[in-house]
């Protein structure tokens, strides 16, 4: 199915490169909802998400000539969309990136976990309101990640793209991709767990 999707994408890409207006319109129809959905996830504001979507398609129109047709179109385009969303986000609220090492779990010398984890927050996501609140927080935590980690977790975990396609787009090995993905997940997991461990702050936001 992914191959079929890419075959259709490539046909449209070639049409756009030749100046076929209908091909561009079809590409907009095909992907505007996914681009908007991504932009909303990053920006969490409908107006900003709509503007980021428009900018993304403008870039597609202007830069389609730089797309290497041996790559998967959607992974390339998704990164264009991510970059637009995050550049808009940075204009709005500069965020400094974090040290991933500080969020790694702690272990004893014998390899056992050094701290006891709280499982309660994981049960809490059965409640839709709590899950939505945590998702909003998680989006903020992803924003703190270095770019290479941020893009990977968005593409694989949020967008459900195939890791092998993402690795190809980022021009890294599958092993490197999995390593980044895991580190990014560990970071977000740690920060979500910290929320659970600080009930006062969470209650203030009306969740849990």
């Amino acid at each position, binding site marked *: 199915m992914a191959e079929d999707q890419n075959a259709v994408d490539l046909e449209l890409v070639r049409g756009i490169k030749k*100046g076929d207006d209908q091909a561009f319109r079809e590409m907009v129809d095909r992907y505007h909802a996914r681009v908007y959905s991504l932009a909303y996830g990053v920006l969490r504001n409908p107006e900003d998400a709509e503007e980021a979507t428009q900018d993304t398609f403008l870039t597609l129109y202007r830069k389609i000539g730089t797309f290497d047709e041996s790559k998967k179109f959607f992974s390339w385009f998704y990164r264009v969309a991510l970059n637009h969303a995050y550049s808009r986000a940075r204009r709005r609220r500069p965020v400094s990136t974090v040290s991933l090492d500080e969020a790694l779990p702690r272990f004893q010398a014998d390899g056992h976990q050094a701290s006891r984890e709280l499982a309660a927050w994981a049960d809490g996501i059965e409640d839709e309101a709590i899950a939505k609140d945590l998702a909003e927080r998680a989006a903020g935590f992803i924003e703190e990640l270095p770019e290479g980690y941020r893009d990977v977790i968005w593409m694989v975990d949020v967008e459900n793209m195939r890791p092998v396609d993402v690795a190809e787009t980022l021009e890294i090995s599958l092993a490197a991709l999995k390593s980044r993905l895991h580190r990014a997940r560990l970071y977000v997991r740690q920060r979500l767990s910290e929320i659970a461990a600080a009930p006062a702050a969470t209650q203030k936001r009306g969740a849990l």
Partner: protein
Amino acid sequence: MTHDEITCRRLILECLVDYEDGTMVEAERLQLEAHLSHCPPCVVFIKTYRATGRTLRMLKPREIPDNLADAVMKFVKERCGEKK
């Protein structure tokens, strides 16, 4: 590798991503699951790791504004002359 070689550290830092996407070698998977059978903290860790993934998937589909596709076309057309 013996059963004892799967520590919490190894499970969490090295094996978890392959375990979760189902690409772990069968023999190692069985060893990992043996570790889980006697390590409640790792069971909790995996639970929170999976909950993180489920939380992230909630960032997906939102309501899409009506006429967004038309607005995109209009925007591109305005900036690229009458080509579109």
